[in-house]
């Protein structure tokens, strides 16, 4: 009997495949990963709330006290920078966590072993992860930047000292804040690839972005001015200024951004090499 009856196949046949598994499929996979965990939504919601909320608090508070402000304070007030300050001061903290977790969460859960079994070409996995993270971070930071800017200007309308995107440097400051925060996230992603540990990565990145600049301030003034332009966070400070002369000791806004971009690129490459070479 057993020899004559054909057993039911366990699995139905798959459509034949040509070529090989590559970047496209892994990109789709990484998007599924990022959209299918709640922490993504929480993190990005916090990013939006903190960025828009802090920006609104600063601009709303300024508008409320505008009549008591000294003329010199009014003159130096930067309505653009004030509106996006929440994003580039606190938003970067949130994006650092998000960026770090993109890779370190795979190590803490062990998912990386499953991921690399499904797609053993590690460069593909690394590139897809970084790409999806960058796209999601860009979308969210741009949304946060523009909401913060327009809400800030609305709250400042009573002061008649508001900015429009057509004014010099204003668009650069808004877009630059979003790009800067995204870059902070990629920076954390790369450090995460190197350290493979969530808490260690967040500590290290926050140390570099927040603590090092504070320590640099303790240096003698002339030393500080030499050092400051080489700090990663100087990019955010240079890009967001629209009123008054740019800080003299820094490079121009986009060059300052380029300094940070080069650091991030180097770390991304180091992270990629380690991701490729180390046992998973």
């Amino acid at each position, binding site marked *: 009997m057993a020899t004559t009856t054909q057993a039911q196949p366990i699995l139905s046949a*798959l459509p034949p495949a040509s070529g090989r598994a590559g970047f496209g499929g892994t990109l789709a996979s990484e998007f599924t*990963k990022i959209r299918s965990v709640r922490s993504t939504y929480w993190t990005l919601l916090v990013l939006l709330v903190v960025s828009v909320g802090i920006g609104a608090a600063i601009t709303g508070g300024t508008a409320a006290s505008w009549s008591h402000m000294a003329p010199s304070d009014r003159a130096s007030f930067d309505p653009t920078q004030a509106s996006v300050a929440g994003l580039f001061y606190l938003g970067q903290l949130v994006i650092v966590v998000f960026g770090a977790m993109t890779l370190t969460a795979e190590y803490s859960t062990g998912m*990386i072993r499953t991921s690399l079994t499904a797609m053993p070409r590690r460069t593909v996995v690394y590139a897809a992860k970084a790409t999806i993270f960058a796209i999601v971070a860009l979308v969210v930071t741009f949304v946060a930047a523009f909401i913060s800017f327009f809400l800030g200007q609305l709250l400042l309308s009573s002061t008649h000292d508001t900015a429009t995107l057509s004014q010099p440097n204003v668009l650069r400051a808004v877009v630059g804040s979003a790009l800067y925060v995204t870059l902070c996230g990629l920076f954390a992603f790369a450090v995460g690839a190197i350290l493979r540990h969530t808490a260690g990565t967040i500590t290290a990145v926050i140390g570099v972005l927040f603590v090092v600049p504070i320590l640099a301030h303790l240096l003698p003034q002339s030393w500080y001015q030499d050092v400051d332009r080489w700090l990663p966070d100087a990019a955010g400070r240079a890009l967001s200024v629209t009123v008054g002369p740019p800080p003299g000791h820094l490079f121009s806004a986009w060059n300052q951004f380029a300094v940070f971009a080069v650091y991030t690129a180097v770390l991304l490459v180091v992270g990629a090499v380690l991701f490729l070479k180390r*046992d998973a």
Partner: protein
Amino acid sequence: MIEVRGLVKQYGAKIAVNDLSFDVEPGHVTGFLGPNGAGKTTTMRLILGLDYPDAGTSLIHGKRYAGLAYPMREVGALIDAKAVHGGRSAYNHLLCLAQTNNLPKRRVGEVLELVGLTEVARKRTRGFSLGMSQRLGIAGTLLGDPAVLMFDEPVNGLDPEGILWIRNLMKALAAEGRTVFVSSHLMSEMENTADHLIVIGRGSLLADCTMEEFIARSSGQTVRVRTPQPDLLAKAVSEAIPEATRAGVATATTAGATTAGATTAGVTTAGAATARPTATTEADGSLTVHGLTAAQVGDLAFDHGVRLHELTVVRASLEAAFMELTADSVEYRAGEGPAEQPAPVSEGAI
């Protein structure tokens, strides 16, 4: 078809895999056996390219794993069922795996149905029992309809029904002509499943043979005895001189004083522990005698006036043969003392 050639992997000073070579053929369930820490998981990780070997190669269908066009269509591998993001649903977990290999979405539902997880497909995997996680992991291996399947300790955490299910699944997959490579540290799990065995200990190959060959090799036997006077018989057995060494002892006794016999017996015990007959009390009250034939035990009982209710020859279990084979390569072992003590039998225990 998996081909492992001269695989070596060292972690610091510890050699996890030591010059390992073997083939895993299609159409069979191949059991990969070894005590904990023998290097089974490391070997599987090396085959999958999760770890890089210090020397040697492992090929699947003649290619390195990372070089396969669609890895999941050729190999389904489950190393660690808990290696998932607990915040992701079972469906999305499988979907993100399927997408990497451009597998159709409908496949996810199909494999969930196959492993019986359809009802919890949208639940986050954090709340899954180990058994459910194993099923999810197995579902993942089947996504690509692969010709080669690798499972690392797949029955861990499964209930008896689940163990039966995975046994039948592995047999059915092998019957379809697939290569099924499954690791375990328990021989009893493999006894009814595997056709072929690869046994390793301390990273080295100890045996690579069919199950029949392994059974034939492990020809050691014991005698089970039931008696109302177990203590008396146990004493008699422990004092009995095994057939093999009787001649030597007799010579010694003839040659010298009575103490010489005791000395020789002591030497025998230390030098060739297996040759010395022993009687151990089993949980059901019976005695298991090693090192004597049934006839010898019967004679011994008669000589000592011990009444016997049962006298049975028991062929050594595969588990015992496996433990004997790997005895020298067990990595972590409890103290010898307590293990030798007969287990106290109490009502309702175990």
